[in-house]
């Protein structure tokens, strides 16, 4: 890992991000959602599942979507190959790009949580869960971005990611019973496990989120290796 190279990629991506109208609007999605939820709650305390939907919206609509679009664009325009052909390592490239996404994601998340109430998240296990969730959504974005090969095709993946992983607690709103198979499967999803961490102070749930992150890391690694050579 080389700090100078990571900084170079970070600096380039920040400039590119500021000039990309499609990406620059994404961090406002969870903020607007938070403002709407606060208005609906009429000053009352929001249920914990609603708070985690804000978290899920931030990570899916900001973290995953921005990373997905950035990687797909690098892949489509062949600029990623230029980075790979330079002395920058895979880690330098991914960390440099991830820092931009982290900066934007955490700014958006912080503002959103300040609007809806940040207090429920102020304990160690919840913070760890939030960080693991971020890593999961980030790696998912990298993998899908490289897999989809073009910016246009990422739109086909953004919605499923948002609904499956970003808005998982909304499954209750579909009227599916808690004992149904769909609910049981959804219960293992990372955002639901983060709610379990909050409600039960569970280390097991943190472990499950970590497993999801490892799975996403393997997926991202395979996609990156496939993209960076022509074999």
């Amino acid at each position, binding site marked *: 890992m080389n700090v*100078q190279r990571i900084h170079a990629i970070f600096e380039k991506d920040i*400039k590119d991000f500021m000039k*990309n109208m499609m990406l620059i609007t994404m961090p406002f999605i969870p903020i607007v959602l938070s403002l709407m939820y606060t208005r609906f709650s009429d000053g009352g305390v929001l249920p914990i599942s609603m708070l985690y939907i804000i978290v899920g919206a931030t990570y899916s609509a900001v973290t995953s979507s921005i990373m997905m679009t950035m990687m797909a664009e690098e892949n489509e325009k062949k600029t990623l190959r230029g980075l790979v052909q330079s*002395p*920058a390592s895979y880690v330098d490239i991914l960390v440099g790009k991830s820092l931009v996404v982290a900066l934007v994601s955490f700014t958006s998340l912080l503002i959103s949580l300040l609007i809806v109430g940040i207090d429920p998240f102020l304990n160690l296990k919840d913070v760890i869960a939030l960080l693991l969730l971020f890593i999961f959504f980030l790696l998912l974005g990298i993998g899908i971005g490289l897999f989809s090969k073009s910016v246009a095709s990422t739109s086909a993946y953004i919605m499923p990611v948002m609904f499956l992983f970003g808005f998982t607690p909304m499954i209750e709103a579909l009227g599916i019973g808690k004992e149904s198979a769909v609910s049981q499967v959804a219960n293992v999803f990372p955002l639901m496990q983060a709610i379990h961490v909050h409600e039960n102070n569970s280390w097991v749930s943190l472990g499950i989120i970590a497993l999801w992150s490892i799975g996403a890391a393997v997926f991202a690694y395979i996609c990156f290796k496939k993209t960076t*050579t022509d074999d």
Partner: protein
Amino acid sequence: MENSIEVSDLHKSFGKKTAIKDVSFHVEKGEIFGLLGPSGSGKTTTIKILTGELTQTHGKVTALGTDASRFSTADYKSKIGILSDNSSLYERLSIYDNLKLFCKLYNVPLKQIDVMLQEVNLHEERQTTVSKLSKGMKQRVMLAKALIHKPELVFLDEPTSALDPGNMAHIHRSLQKLNEAGTTIFLTTHNMEEATALCDRVAFLHKGELQELDCPSALRYKYSTHAFHVETVQGDRLVIENVPENANRMKELIGNGHVKSIHTDHPTLGQVFLKVTGEELVS
């Protein structure tokens, strides 16, 4: 002389399709080496193997003393420069910002940006956004990007394909200057004039096989009919074979003041390629 590239029995297959068949050659240090061939002949595959973008099926490949298995290391990458069909630029950023990124990745002082922009004749446009540049200007920026870290070995895949004659001549001068400073250049081109003007040696690749390898003048001589084309002051055009029996005839023509011009019959490199492969060298 020390070799920058050594390729021995290189073979590359994609499934059942063979792209390169047992190709062997070497490139001497400080040489400009041209790999010529039509589309699909295996030129780009060869460059991709030499730059670590592809792995050979079998055969031994080394460049700058590095084995092909180590082409992905930062040490090798910092010694080579690449301009290929996979090269690209960040469209929303300026020329300066694009080159700044690569200066930092290669740990090169930022003042090198101005030097390179002078070389490719784009200094005035340094703050222009890349999306506003013509195809030829982008090609020149990509060349500047490939050379910004003063690599020991440069791979250029059709480096002047999108350039007008003026800028092509400018780039040729820059490449010759770079070569005089000791950089080895490995290039592919369809432009025979470019190959003749720039390359110390050229190799003809056809259907994945190496057909010829020598310096352009030697190849042109080898495939010449060795005849003199004589134009007389009377307007006659004579073809006289370069054999001892014709010495007196030539002496007589010159002695009598009948000769307006004499040319040897050396084919162009393109004509040599046609003779060797039976195919025109077109993209």
